[in-house]
């Protein structure tokens, strides 16, 4: 492999100013000698300069709404499954309740933290705010959150349950969770029945990890009364949709 082949891709990173700084001078030596790469740089440079004009928040909002869509789709599918199960086992009364709960979930889930906001000082991302379904507060809200770290999986959960007229709002903050994997949140009622109130994916970077320090914050809903909830359970779904492991249990 000659110099040009191995360095071919670096022209874009160089134009964007994101080439590893140790490689910049090495790359410039190559540029001085390779007119093909120098011409490519001239071609790409206007695009990289114009990029500086873009407010990343504009792009950000697109990504956010995409993620919200995906999350809502996952929840919808999940609710349909859950509804079918309920209908078979418990009968029509519960099915109506589950359908109502489903409606509440669709209205209530918000992806609160789809992209890290830490980063470099002065990062434009510091001002990013999620635009979908503005909740009144980004934190868990008033009340006493319950914190649990699972001794086996290391997954850390902070949960807050808020009783409302329509049921219970369940806000969770997840960290120390690695990916990629798909998860579900279950509400376990006092009578032992279970209800899936949402599902989501954890990307390869995880949440609340070294690579992605921000936790995942989700807000979900159930028609169940606050006093009727005994436990929250976060579990992992295998690719075929079967339950593969419990990641954390939060006693209420």
């Amino acid at each position, binding site marked *: 492999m000659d110099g040009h082949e191995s360095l071919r891709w670096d022209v874009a990173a160089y134009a964007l100013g*994101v080439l590893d700084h140790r490689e910049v001078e090495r790359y410039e030596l190559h540029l001085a000698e390779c007119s093909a790469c120098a011409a490519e*740089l001239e*071609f790409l440079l*206007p695009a990289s300069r114009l990029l500086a004009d*873009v407010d990343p928040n504009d*792009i950000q909002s697109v990504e956010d709404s995409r993620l919200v869509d995906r999350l809502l789709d996952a929840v919808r599918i999940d609710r349909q499954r859950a509804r079918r199960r309920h209908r078979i086992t418990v009968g029509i009364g519960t099915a109506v309740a589950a359908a109502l709960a489903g409606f509440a979930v669709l209205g209530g889930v918000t992806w609160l933290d789809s992209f890290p906001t830490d*980063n470099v000082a002065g990062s434009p991302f510091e001002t990013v705010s999620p635009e979908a379904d503005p909740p009144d507060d980004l934190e868990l809200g008033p009340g006493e959150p319950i914190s649990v770290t699972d001794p086996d999986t290391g997954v850390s959960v902070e949960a807050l349950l808020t009783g409302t007229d329509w049921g219970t709002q369940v806000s969770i903050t997840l960290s120390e969770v690695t990916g990629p994997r798909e998860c579900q949140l279950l509400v376990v009622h006092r009578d032992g029945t279970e209800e899936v109130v949402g599902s989501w994916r954890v990307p390869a970077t995880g949440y609340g990890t070294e690579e992605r320090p921000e936790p995942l914050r989700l807000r979900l809903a159930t028609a169940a009364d606050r006093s009727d909830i005994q436990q929250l359970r976060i579990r992992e779904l295998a690719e075929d949709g079967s339950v593969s492991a419990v990641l954390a249990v939060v006693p209420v």
Partner: protein
Amino acid sequence: MRMLYDQHANPLLMFVLRLTGGDRQRAEDIVQETLMRAWRNAHKLGAQGQTSIRPWLVTVARRIAIDNHRSENARPTEMYDQELDSFAVADETDHVLRSMTVTEALRSLSYAHREILLETFFRGRTVPEAANVLGLPLGTAKSRVYYALRALRLALEQRGVTG
């Protein structure tokens, strides 16, 4: 100007020396000319500090070197400045419009391409850092950055933004 000089004169000289085959006097002239142009165009280049102007300097220095080589001082200097406008930000008045067009062009890219540009350019991460965050092999991240920027360049061209 002092800052420009301190930051870029030396690496730029190393670069130009190669173009001039080691002719130090000529190389220094070219570096001086390049930095003068950069300084005159500083307001157009946008001082966001987000993008290093080094790639721009290198490109301009190379052009000057090539033109010098072809014919000594055959072209009036204003010609350069006109050409440089295609690299620089042309006019403040249509800044908003252009920014909207560029945003639109960015949105037309695939998710993977937008994602890699977000992780590198907008987050200020190097390619290896972004590869790490996205869980990509370094080679994949490198080629993705390349194809993403190319796709953006073409999307901008379609919208008549770049000259």
